[in-house]
């Protein structure tokens, strides 16, 4: 099942990129997509051999607008800091360590990426369930892991 | 060709080139050279040579940078010095003007400029390549080769043997680089 879905995703991708609709190009595309789907379908649906991920896609899509909102916020905050004449008085960088309760690998990676994208924090290291995060201000350091972990748990964790 | 972008990009490229040859530390020079390749690709795309830009992006910025860095990390044991941007102190003694190389390059440059005087003017419609060769390619390439891209048609079909053995040479170079870099404890 995962193979068939991979095949169709790859085919859509091929048509999108190539833009040629004659028989030769479409045929080459179908052959390539078949090969990719047979050999490496397990890369796209990592750890999801069944079809349960279809349900998850919508949850993940619901997570994205919130993430984009956070990215806008973080960029505005960076803008404020960068343009402030006495920048060095505002920032107070520090390293923070915390443990996450997410168990799914995919969820952990998403958390790391989201932390990097949101206000004032960058993931430095992730080993097991311990995160090392570099925070730009004290306020950003205190807000970890906070709301984001809850939202990711809702989107990607399956109990 | 948009001359405002052209001038600006050329300035940036020259800055990058100067940075590459003046910076101390080989790894730093490699990184600046990657930026140079990126800007060069942009310049070519901006002049309309999309194929060349594509090649420059993939070969210049991608592959060659990775190879340079691989070679650097395999060949030096003073990685900390390299990372900090400091080069081997023994190299510093050799700073200063070398008369012979300077004269050689100046003479070569003068000769090249002298030879350039015989070229037809830039974009001259009466020059031999524009009269005979180009028009033939433009008229017949699509019909004869079925390749929609003219540059690819010339390189891959009309000059097929040339390109093929060129690829053999590049392939051999790639294989030797990989086999050298694969040796552990070099």
């Amino acid at each position, binding site marked *: 099942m995962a193979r068939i879905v991979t095949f169709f995703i790859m085919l859509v991708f091929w048509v999108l990129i190539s833009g040629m609709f004659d028989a030769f190009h479409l045929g080459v595309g179908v052959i390539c997509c078949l090969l990719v789907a047979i050999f490496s379908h397990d890369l796209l649906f990592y750890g999801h051999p069944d079809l349960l991920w279809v349900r998850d896609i919508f949850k993940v899509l619901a997570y994205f607008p919130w993430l984009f909102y956070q990215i806008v916020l973080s960029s505005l905050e960076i803008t404020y800091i*960068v343009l402030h004449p006495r920048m060095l008085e505002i920032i107070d*960088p520090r390293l923070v360590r915390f443990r996450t309760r997410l168990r799914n690998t995919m969820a952990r990676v998403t958390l*790391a990426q989201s932390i990097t994208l949101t206000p004032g924090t*960058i993931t430095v290291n992730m080993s097991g369930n311990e995160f090392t995060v570099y925070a730009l201000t004290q306020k950003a350091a205190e807000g970890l892991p906070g709301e984001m972990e809850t939202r990711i748990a809702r989107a990607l964790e399956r109990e | 060709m948009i001359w405002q972008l052209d001038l600006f990009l050329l300035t940036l490229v020259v800055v990058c080139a100067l940075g590459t040859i003046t910076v101390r530390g080989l790894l730093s020079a490699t990184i600046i050279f990657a930026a140079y390749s990126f800007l060069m690709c942009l310049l070519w795309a901006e002049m309309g040579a999309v194929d060349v830009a594509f090649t420059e992006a993939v070969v210049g910025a991608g592959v060659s940078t990775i190879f340079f860095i691989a070679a650097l990390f395999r060949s030096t044991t003073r990685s900390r010095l390299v990372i900090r941007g400091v080069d081997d102190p023994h190299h510093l003694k050799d700073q200063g003007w070398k008369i012979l190389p300077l004269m050689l390059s100046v003479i070569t440059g003068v000769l090249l400029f002298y030879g350039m005087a015989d070229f037809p003017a830039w974009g001259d419609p009466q020059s031999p390549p524009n009269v005979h060769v180009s028009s033939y390619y433009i008229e017949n390439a699509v019909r004869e080769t079925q390749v929609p891209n003219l540059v690819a048609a010339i390189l891959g079909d009309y000059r097929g043997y040339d390109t093929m053995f060129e690829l053999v040479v590049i392939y051999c170079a790639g294989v030797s680089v990989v086999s050298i870099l694969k040796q552990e404890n070099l």
Partner: protein
Amino acid sequence: MSIVSWVVAVLLFLGVFFFAIGAIGILRFPDFYSRLHAAGKCDALASTLALVAIALFNVRDFDWTLFQSWDNLRVSLKILLIILFVYVATPAATHAITKAAFIVGIEPWEKRKRNR
């Protein structure tokens, strides 16, 4: 200029503005790690704004009877694909660089009062 053109222009210049902020940021911040903040975040947002503007402008007069319009739509989807890639790639690259710096041992800049 039509209303789509205005929206496109505003989005485009917002993108350019955030790119400029990112560039100024990596010049002004005191240490390596805080420079990464400016680089990673502002670039992601700025690419999104500028590329969305261009994709929008590309399909400005969409007519479903013309093949050309559908081709334009395909190109716009390709541009959106770049955005998706930027969102996956930028945090990963930032993370990789940070980790390398951490392992090499570049010291984070700290406020004077914390260095007892």
